[in-house]
């Protein structure tokens, strides 16, 4: 055959072979057929059998924690028996919820979250996400497979009868009649203070293709926010918000006993500790998990996870088993994941307090799914790709961040609907601290081919992108946009706390954080609980700062406005044409300006050409100030905040001024720009003419 025929046939054959290969692999993507025997009917039968439901009490088990007594005030006990159909992505389950009324008053109704109903076109979540933006979903091509649903088929209040007909959806936040993410359940006889009530619920959840870190992708599933979950009685009222595009969750502590029946080929991971696994005759298996002192339960299943579960961290309260579920193509990174998980545990235990749980499960979620980077009690998801270079610390960043949530969300269980900054923001602050320590202050995000970036700067960039839009202290779903929600709750909070560290000192801040964690773990603290703790530990009244940085939205921007140095006898010099010498006395003036509304005292360092440095203090009260000097030296530079403790200055470039221009930085970045331009021009000319 002549070579030209080979050249022509090669691409054709390649395309055909690729097509066949792709189709074959796609065909293998689903689970084996014929092994899925679960059904609603079967689940219903199981529900009937599975629920003698225990007694009317919350167990005081400690199976899942390294403690011989409960660590939280346990309000709820969930017993769930769930059957997952991997073909339809539907869970049919029974739930027995025992609730201990510790509210101090009689309760005659109970609101429940039905989170998966958020993923419907007229739900509040979708309405908000469509306008304000969203991390994962583009609505131009929103397909039916991305719909989720969660339905209570039957609900019985034990001893009071079936109240299914009396349940009704409510929309406490926006009155959206089409939103079905909260359902209110009346109880015929009010539950007296101190009493228990038990609900028997038959429900069905249909997962969407992953939305907001929950759902399925190919043959993977992540079961998050998947069961009817009761609201929290908080500050004298039920706190049970609708599911919003810009918010997360809030729930009471308790005990979870969950049975998951899945196809036998699935590898399963979940919150808590695994207590049993039995094979069923219908090619399914039932895996049972138990969790103590947690406020949510998530699980995952995929036939392709590779598991590393031999890692043990010897924590302050006892051993912690680290279970890591990796994608096969990421297996070479398993040690990397385990290392950062272990280092995170070490830092958090050392700095903030003990990790009391016996397990931590890290899940490397399905590629392309919207399930990466999420926290659930004792269960987190990471985020990596098969090609991730060592110098890009994305996996470390995600794992550390999600692990940090075991403290700031998992144990210090703040209200994420109303105070999102108290979990995401405080967690972002500790993330900066921990990653600085592990990976370096300026290299914790990346350190590759000479390019570097630190986590504190990334947080600051997030903040300055939305600096003048929203205050920190407001409800999560009230932010102007998803960008503002992210920039303020994560970036601004981290930057504000790093700046606070500069005000009260790093040691005091570290102590305050530890006190806050130890005092409020296993509770639902408010923002004032946090702020008061810092004031108490530091012994300072910091209201001036909190009012501006936490409750307000003024922007901080200080600038070195002008530097002037001229000979004091300039007029005489001019007449005699005398030149400057080292005995010449100079009159120097340094002007500083506060460009925006955030008033904050600052330090400024002024350098002279004889090597002398002077530090000045400015309270920032006026719009501008000046410092004048008579010396036999000229001012060469001035720098506001020379110790770089202020992270919330919107413009770092104008914080300093050097009299003699240094063109090197510009020359360098321009060279990059010119190189790219020339290369593109040559590439265009190569192919187009």
């Amino acid at each position: 055959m002549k070579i030209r025929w080979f050249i022509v046939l090669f691409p054709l054959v390649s395309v055909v072979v690729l097509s066949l290969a792709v189709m074959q692999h796609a065909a293998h993507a689903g689970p084996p057929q014929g092994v899925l025997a679960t059904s609603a009917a079967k689940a219903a039968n199981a529900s009937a059998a599975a629920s003698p439901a225990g007694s009317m009490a919350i167990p005081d088990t400690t199976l899942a924690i390294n403690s011989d007594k409960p660590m939280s005030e346990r309000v709820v006990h969930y017993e769930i028996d769930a059957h997952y159909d991997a073909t339809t992505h539907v869970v049919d389950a029974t739930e027995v919820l025992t609730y201990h009324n510790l509210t101090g008053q009689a309760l005659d109704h109970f609101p429940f979250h039905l989170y998966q109903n958020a993923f419907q076109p007229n739900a509040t979540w979708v309405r908000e996400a469509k306008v304000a933006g969203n991390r994962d979903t583009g609505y131009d091509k929103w397909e039916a497979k991305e719909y989720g649903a969660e339905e209570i088929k039957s609900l019985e209040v034990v001893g009071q009868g079936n109240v299914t007909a009396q349940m009704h959806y409510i929309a406490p936040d926006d009155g959206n009649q089409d939103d079905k993410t909260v359902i209110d359940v009346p109880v015929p006889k009010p539950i007296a203070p101190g009493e228990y009530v038990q609900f028997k619920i038959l429900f069905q959840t249909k997962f969407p293709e992953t939305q907001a870190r929950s759902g399925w992708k190919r043959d993977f599933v992540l079961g998050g926010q998947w069961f009817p979950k009761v609201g929290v009685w908080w500050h004298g009222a039920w706190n049970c918000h609708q599911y919003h595009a810009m918010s997360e969750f809030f729930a009471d502590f308790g005990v979870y006993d969950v049975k998951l029946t899945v196809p036998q080929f699935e590898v399963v991971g979940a919150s808590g500790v695994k207590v049993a696994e039995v094979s069923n005759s219908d090619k399914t298996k039932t895996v049972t998990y138990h969790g103590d002192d947690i406020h949510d339960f998530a699980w995952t299943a995929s036939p392709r996870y590779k598991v590393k579960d031999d890692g043990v961290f010897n924590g302050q309260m006892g051993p912690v088993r680290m279970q890591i579920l990796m994608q096969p193509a990421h297996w070479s990174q398993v040690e990397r994941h385990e290392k950062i998980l272990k280092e995170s545990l070490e830092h958090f235990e050392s700095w903030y307090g003990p990790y009391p749980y016996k397990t931590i499960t890290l899940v490397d979620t399905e590629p392309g799914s919207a399930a990466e980077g999420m926290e659930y009690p004792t269960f987190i998801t990471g985020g990596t790709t098969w090609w991730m270079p060592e110098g890009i610390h994305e996996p470390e960043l995600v794992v550390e961040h999600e692990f940090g949530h075991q403290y700031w969300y998992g144990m210090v269980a703040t209200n994420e609907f109303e105070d999102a900054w108290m979990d995401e923001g405080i967690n972002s602050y500790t993330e900066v601290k921990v990653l600085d320590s592990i990976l370096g202050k300026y290299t914790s995000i990346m350190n590759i081919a000479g390019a570097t970036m630190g986590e504190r700067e990334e947080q600051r960039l997030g903040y300055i992108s939305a600096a003048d839009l929203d205050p920190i202290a407001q409800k999560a779903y009230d932010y102007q946009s998803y960008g503002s929600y992210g920039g303020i709750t994560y970036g601004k909070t981290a930057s504000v706390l790093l700046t606070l560290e500069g005000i009260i000192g790093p040691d005091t801040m570290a102590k305050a954080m530890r006190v806050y964690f130890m005092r409020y773990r296993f509770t639902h603290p408010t923002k004032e609980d946090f702020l008061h703790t810092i004031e108490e530990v530091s012994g300072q009244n910091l209201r001036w700062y909190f009012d501006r940085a936490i409750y307000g939205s003024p922007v901080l921007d200080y600038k070195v406005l002008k530097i002037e140095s001229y000979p004091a006898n300039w007029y005489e010099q001019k007449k005699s044409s005398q030149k400057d010498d080292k005995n010449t006395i100079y009159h120097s003036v340094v002007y500083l300006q506060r460009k925006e509304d955030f008033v904050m005292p600052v330090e400024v360092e002024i350098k002279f050409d004889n090597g002398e440095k002077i530090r000045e203090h400015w309270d920032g009260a006026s719009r501008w100030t000046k410092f004048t000097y008579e010396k036999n030296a000229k001012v060469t530079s001035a720098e506001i905040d020379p110790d770089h403790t202020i992270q919330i200055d919107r413009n770092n470039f104008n914080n300093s001024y050097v009299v003699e221009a240094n063109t090197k930085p510009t020359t360098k970045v321009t060279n990059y720009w010119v190189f790219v331009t020339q290369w593109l021009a040559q590439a265009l000319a190569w192919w187009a003419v």
Partner: protein
Amino acid sequence: MAERQGLLTSGWARLGRNKRYLVWFYLLNLSLARFGAAAFNNQAHGILDHSLYSGRLVHGFDMAVFGEMLARPEFGPTAASSAASTGFAVLFFIATALFLPGVLQGYASTYRLPREDFFRACGRNLWRFIRLMIVAAIVFGIVAAALFGIQGALVKAAGESTNELLPFYVSLACLTVIFLAMSVLRIWFDLAEADVVLSDQRAVRRSIAKGFRHTWRSLGSLLSSYVLTTIVAAIILVAGIWVWMRLVPADGVYRAILISQLTLFLLLIPRFWQRGVAVTYYLQNMVEPIAVQTFAPVAVVAPVVTPADEPVVAPVNPGSPETQAS
């Protein structure tokens, strides 16, 4: 193989004899890129020159500082700087199209092409090249759209697979095929361009047809030559960036400029080498033979001898009035 080696060797020799074109094109590109970067440069000067914070761009390269610079309102919209640079990149492409006929003429010459001949070739072929480029754009556009469309569909289908690496391998394979297909098209139109200039062909369609025939006829040797030169280009780019990253310290700004510009200069070589290959191929295989008129041999006739008794005529003076009158 021998044919390919001949093409490469001869093409390289033509490149060597006409190094000045490389220098001109390099300088032209550099000048245009500098103009294009003027806005970026001025804005960067305004923000960076007097700030201590910008030191983090010199001692290493802090992406956060760079990102913050681009985000500053006084820097202006990054799109404005990009638009200027893109405009000047397009200008270089147009200039290449304008001056290429002169380069091809120079490559085909056995002597150093005088400047006026160079520009004459450029001017004479300007409109022909515009037509040629329009046709090329249509052909490239159709083929690229089809192939990239197929690639997109295949990668999307591969994305449904549980094998995470499959989309990558599919992409890689598709891009290889697309590269080969685009190279074939490039050869076709390179030969057409050579034919237009060197045959002084006004009918561009004939050169395109001729280029297609010859591309098809010698696809193996031509494609392998082009692929090899492209591999050389890739090696130059990777090696240049490697040297830049590894051997030039972060604050060695002027050394970085030197290395980056040397890399860009060397990157021009493979394409001009390909031009040399196309011209060589044209001269070896595409030149129309010159029609030679043959004449039938004339029989030599013996001189007629005038009999001796005939009167002797006086010799004719060609300039005499009698002769002219006749």
